[in-house]
């Protein structure tokens, strides 16, 4: 999670994944969209890192950069490094990169229905992984597909292997996606809003499945979401993104107990909670900025209750709050002193 160079593990390339100063931009006919503006984080085995942010914060684009699935043009990774066990993925050519995609790093998406091909059976699509990457025969691939469907607890896998995506419910389709993602035993699974389109009871089933599978395989999980409650339930560490930058990172317990960045604090006081009634919601004023016109200085300053003159000019670096914690706010100490800003024990 470290940005500074004093992380010994980073120096030796021991992290499972190390993202360093990643910049992604999209050059469109209307101008350049600065989607990711210098983010750094690391992920270890068995760890769950949540990337928390609203739409347009750059959280999904950063994940697509790791997977290497950004359409270029218009998207360009202009700066940075993505080290997978020490190897910089950005330095690889496309054929080498392919050996990572799906095999070392896999991804599941929000909308499983659009991510699956409607004209092939789910068994065919899961088995495709083995046929393409492992050279398996059709019958072997089908057998593997059934095994995987069992593993993600799709009932009657043997009977359903020949069915098509539209015959599955939303939750079952997401399980099919997970089966495909896990088929080649990846070291990292990126889950981009995996439960946003699902009902709450199904969401609980899917999150439980993901953490069980993580326990079995020891994979690192990057969970991209806007849902603070889901993060509280499963994440070890959290990185909060705003306007293409990480504004706060730390262990989920620290961050939820007392936010060190005004944006995190604002998010936490604006959500209604199932276990609280009648608490006044304190929304963040205004709306997130367009990534084509990110405000100068701290990008959050137009919405920030702590903002001073310096915030309009100086882009705050990620200050060290504690050994495991960073905040990109000039006045993080003041934010920390506001104890109202946490979610833990506030009930």
């Amino acid at each position, binding site marked *: 999670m470290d940005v500074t160079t004093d992380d010994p593990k980073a120096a030796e390339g021991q992290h499972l994944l190390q993202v360093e100063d990643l910049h992604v931009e999209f050059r469109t006919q209307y101008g350049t969209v600065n989607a990711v503006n210098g983010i750094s984080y690391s992920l270890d085995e068995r760890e769950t890192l949540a990337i928390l942010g*609203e739409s347009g914060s750059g959280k999904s684009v950063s994940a697509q950069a790791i997977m290497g699935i950004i359409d270029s043009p218009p998207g360009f990774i202009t700066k940075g490094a993505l080290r997978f066990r020490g190897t910089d993925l950005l330095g690889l050519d496309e054929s080498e990169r392919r050996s990572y995609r799906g095999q070392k790093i896999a991804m599941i998406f929000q909308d499983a229905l659009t991510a699956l091909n409607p004209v092939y059976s789910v068994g065919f699509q899961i088995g495709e992984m083995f046929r393409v990457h492992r050279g398996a025969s059709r019958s072997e691939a089908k057998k593997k597909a059934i095994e995987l469907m069992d593993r993600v607890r799709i009932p009657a896998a043997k009977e359903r292997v020949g069915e098509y995506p539209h015959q599955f419910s939303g939750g079952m389709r997401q399980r099919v996606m997970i089966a495909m993602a896990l088929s080649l035993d990846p070291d990292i699974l990126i889950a981009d809003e995996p439960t946003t389109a699902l009902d709450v009871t199904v969401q*609980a089933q899917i999150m*439980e499945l993901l953490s069980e599978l993580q326990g079995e395989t020891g994979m690192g999980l990057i969970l991209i979401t*806007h849902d603070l409650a889901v993060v509280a*339930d499963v994440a070890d560490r959290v990185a909060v993104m705003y306007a293409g930058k990480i504004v706060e990172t730390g262990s989920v317990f620290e961050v939820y107990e007392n936010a060190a960045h005004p944006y995190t604090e604002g998010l936490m006081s604006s959500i*209604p909670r199932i276990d609280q009634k009648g608490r006044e919601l304190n*929304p963040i004023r205004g709306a997130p900025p367009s990534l084509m016109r990110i405000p100068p200085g701290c990008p959050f300053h137009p919405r920030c209750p702590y903002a001073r003159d310096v915030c309009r000019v100086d882009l705050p670096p990620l200050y060290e709050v504690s050994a495991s914690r960073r905040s990109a706010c000039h006045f993080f100490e003041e934010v920390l002193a506001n104890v109202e800003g946490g*979610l833990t024990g506030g009930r």
Partner: protein
Amino acid sequence: MADEGNGRPAPERDVILKVENLVKHFPLTQGIVFKKHVGAVKAVEGVSFDLYRGETLGLVGESGCGKSTVAKLLLRLEEATSGSAIYDGKDIFKLPRKELRALRRNIQIVFQDPYASLNPRMTVGDIVAEPWEIHQGRMGKAERRSRVQDLLARVGLDPDHVNRYPHQFSGGQRQRIGIARALALNPDIIICDEPVSALDVSVQAQVVNLLNALQSDFNLSYIFIAHDLAVVRHISDRVAVMYLGKIMEVGNQDQIYDRPTHPYTQALLSAVPVPDPAVRGERKRMVLTGDVPSPANPPSGCVFRTRCWKAQEKCAEEVPALENRGFDHPSACHFAEIERVVPV
């Protein structure tokens, strides 16, 4: 809900809308020229509730439970198969065309998707003023512009933006435009069909606060349809939990969230994550197995029995009525008992 005053906010309040035994079956047909009825999707199957003046009734349930169909029926955007909804002494479902227009003046709706519910070719001023165009005589042409600006200001938008188009606004601002349009005719009831689910977290709270403020200013009644149980708890006075076209349990928000008696309510609440890592692993989870059965072929007896851990023979044979079962609010379960699932 028709039985004695449980879950009511205050007994002296007047009922503004009384819905009884609402049923909607969508026919399933086969064949192209000669359509043959082969069954029906039972989207709403006998829903009854009262809506009091000035209150918010939350309608919750998973997708496909029929909550949005209830909204459409009440506005007569769909025709009900049977049942009644008494508003202002008249049954909504029996109103002739002419009176229907007057009804729609008083019952308005705010939709989920602020991108799809505003005409991209109309200016904001025209969108908000359109209700007066349709309901002639409510507002003189001369006053309209200033009234539109008042409304925009009231929902927190810049009144000078009347000539802008929807695409120039963000999602939260568009939802405010939709709310301004719903307010234009001074309705009694606003049906909010997932009004904040398409919005970002930080913006969602702004809209929820706005809806709350408008309710007290204009003495509005809301039917608030949502799948997000935390938002519903925040905004609702009473909550009705739906499953497969039926109300499983209804009560005020304390009764539903702190003392749920129906297994489905308990399962639903236990699945909602709490934004507090400190309670991780301490909560009891009732993870439901399987999927919601098809509403074209719902289970006999209690519709929830196929996924219920308490189900017994009686549940397959006898439909449990939504009635008082010795607790302080009605529940449609033969084996209702209080189990606390939301941490205190």
